[in-house]
């Protein structure tokens, strides 16, 4: 066990609509999709044509730049539609499930595999994209030599899930997944919220790390920064807790496992709850289950309110997220809304609002920008929610000017956009920090690689 991490910077935004701790099963979805944008900076190249019937676990596309990484179908069914956007960019591969045929892999002897064979197995079976890589937050490079694998079971963002509850029936599979993954890396760090580690505390073959602190303490970047800070040229791998389980299930059955337990939460959700379903399920069916009135103007978010991706009620569950948040849109005017100490129903980290007086009160939020974009004026507010030894504002400015040398020096290798979620939220000038960091990372991948 590591002596743990304690962060003092950050913030908790308490929101209404936390998911009730019941898990309902929902596996009979009529439409499933994979969205290539869930894999940062990956260019998909299709392996099958529209109309093809594929088995569960059959490859449907691969990464143009790393052809050995292939992505498989989460269900058995027909590739009914390839949704394309501007410049024929692939937005989503829509599958209609039918039958239950699945590709079988030989996994009975997994304990005897060496590192190369283990990597080969993950690549062939389509489990590889579960592994992420820092810097940049891309799909792991099978040829890389990472110094560790990081798993955070502490989801600290607003309304996020409790992984100990979410995976309570998968302890065995989780341990099996860890055992297998320990073949790939010298060390596995498994973190959990310090006050309650749950079953993660007793997992073997991994270093348990208790983490104490407000959001973004649960973010991998913060934990990597503390435990094994990334130097130029180094890599670490990452994986989400439920995907460890998916690998564990795969090893047992030999079939690709696309289990995704997702919390549908937020103030616009009638019955916020956990639903066990499949990666890429169409949201409308989950939303019905959770009693969301889809006629209202809502914001549907794949992920949390700070760093998630906006979608529609007919959109699809993201590849990685365990949370769908639904909050009302906020396209309304507020008369004299800029007066300090008024409108305290909006949560605020600034003391120019009296919202902080309410202590533990939970807030209803909407998507209003609460102002307009302005020049960067106020200083110190980004640092307050950024628990890393990095100057966030200076890094953002370096990213805006595209000065690669400066970005490297200020720590671009150690961050991903989600770490700037609270910076987006808190900054007075309404600067889109996550967007700036994302563009900068794209530039880094292009120029430095």
């Amino acid at each position, binding site marked *: 066990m590591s002596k743990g991490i304690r962060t003092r910077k950050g913030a908790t935004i308490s929101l209404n609509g936390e998911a009730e701790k019941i898990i309902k099963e929902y596996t009979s979805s009529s439409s499933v999709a994979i969205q290539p944008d869930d894999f940062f900076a990956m260019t998909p190249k299709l392996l099958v044509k529209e109309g093809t019937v594929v088995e569960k676990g059959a490859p449907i596309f691969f990464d143009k730049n790393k052809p050995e990484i292939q992505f498989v179908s989460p269900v058995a069914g027909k590739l009914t539609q390839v949704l394309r956007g501007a410049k024929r960019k692939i937005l989503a591969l829509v599958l209609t499930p039918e039958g239950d045929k699945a590709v079988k892999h030989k996994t009975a002897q997994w304990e005897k595999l060496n590192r190369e064979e283990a990597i080969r197995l993950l690549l062939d079976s389509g489990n590889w994209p579960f592994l992420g890589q820092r810097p940049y937050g891309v799909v792991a490079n099978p040829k890389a030599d990472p110094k560790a694998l990081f798993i955070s079971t502490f989801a600290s963002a607003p309304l996020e899930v409790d992984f100990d509850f979410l995976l309570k029936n998968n302890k065995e599979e989780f341990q099996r997944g860890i055992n297998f993954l320990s073949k790939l890396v010298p060390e596995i760090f498994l973190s959990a919220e310090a006050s309650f580690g749950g079953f993660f505390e007793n997992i073997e073959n991994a270093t348990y790390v208790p983490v104490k602190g407000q959001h973004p303490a649960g973010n991998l970047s913060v934990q990597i920064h503390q435990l094994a800070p990334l130097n130029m040229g180094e890599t670490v791998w990452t994986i989400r807790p439920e995907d460890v389980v998916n690998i564990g299930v795969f090893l047992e059955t030999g079939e690709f496992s696309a289990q995704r337990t997702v919390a549908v939460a937020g103030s616009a959700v009638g019955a916020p709850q956990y639903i066990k379903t499949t990666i890429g399920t169409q949201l409308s069916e989950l939303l019905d289950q959770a009693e969301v009135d889809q006629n209202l103007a809502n*914001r549907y978010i794949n992920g949390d309110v700070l760093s998630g991706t906006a979608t529609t009620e007919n959109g699809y569950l993201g590849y990685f997220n365990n949370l769908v948040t639904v909050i009302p849109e906020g396209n309304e005017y507020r008369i004299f809304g800029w007066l300090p100490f008024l409108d305290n129903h909006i949560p605020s980290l600034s003391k120019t609002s009296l919202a902080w007086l309410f202590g533990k009160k939970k807030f209803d939020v*909407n998507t*209003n920008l609460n102002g*307009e974009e*302005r*020049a960067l004026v106020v200083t110190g507010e980004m640092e307050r929610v950024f628990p890393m030894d990095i100057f966030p*504002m200076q890094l953002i400015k370096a990213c805006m000017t595209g000065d690669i040398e400066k970005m490297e020096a200020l720590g671009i290798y150690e961050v991903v956009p989600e770490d700037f979620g609270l910076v*987006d*939220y808190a900054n007075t000038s309404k600067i889109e920090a996550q967007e700036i960091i994302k563009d900068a990372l794209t530039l880094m991948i292009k120029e430095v690689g």
Partner: protein
Amino acid sequence: MNFLRNQLDNLKRPFAKGEKWERFAPAVNAFDTFLFVPNHTTTKGAHIRDAVDLKRTMVTVILALMPALFYGIYNTGYQHFIQLGTPFTFMEAFVHGAFKIVPMIIVSYVVGLTIEFAFAVYRGHEVNEGYLVTGMLIPMIMPVDIPLWMVAISVAFAVLIAKEAFGGTGMNILNPALTARAFAFFAYPTYMSGNKVWVSEAGNVDAISGETILGTLAAGQQVNYSLFEMFQGAIPGSIAETSTLWILVGALILIATGVGSWRIMAGGVLGAAVMGFLFNLWGANALMSFNWMNHLVAGGFAFGIVFMATDPVSAAQTTKGKWIYGILVGIFCIMIRVFNPAYPEGVMLAILLMNVFAPTIDHYVIQSNVNKRKKRWATSQLKTA
């Protein structure tokens, strides 16, 4: 409210994208967003946002300025009637001051905002709220009898040269309000120093004794005010700088709301106290032996360190940098006071000087972070090599 909203939407129609008056949209939007926080929703990045915005921040600063401003208005009348020797009531003093000061504020806002609006339209961005504070600060640090046209020219100079020439709000190196005062100070010295300018209509009185405390000291004379009088503020000086008491109320608002940096304020007081104390020990002349506590409450030090040095754009931006910056402002302020009898008040020049050095301070603070990271890289490469 809906009626008002609809009227506004109708009025704004010709300014919409692709319409006739599109270019002037920033000017109209400035008025619209003054009435209503707009209905804009998040399109990228975080889906929810804090209630705070630049308007709210700037309005908080203005709130913090109010106690000092109101006392300044009263004190203007008070000094006037005291020198005349006529009896007066509180209201009379206040009204006299208001007649002097409100026109200055109006001139400052009209001239400054006109330039700001023009630049916003010219550059095609929204009007930034920074000038709301600057425009209030400028009259507050002027002598009461300065002609309005000088206020106008100082404002124009500050906004054009100190701010817009550098790219507008957020980009300026010098604090615009202090630049306005420095401009007036060097361009019209007879209106900005001496013993007649600090009391309104002092020209009408023969035996005036309206010298500021620091001016008196610089001239080598004895100060007739007690520490408490200096603290409470019924002394001659620039309009709103005299009352440390009411400036402290403003400081509390700034610190409690987190809008002003307490580190800069604390650093400034610390720097000035230590410097003043060291000079006390030396004690070679009247200025040096001026008690260090008096230094903190006399002149514009309190106003400068609370409202000017804390301007986030022109101050140091890193946490460590803020301490260094604040301490140096304090040190230089007292040093200029003591060593430079031509400029009895040192706080303006100390802050402007440190404005110029703030990026340098930040550079070294950031560089130490960068060096730490590069050192880590170097040791890791040694290990793998």
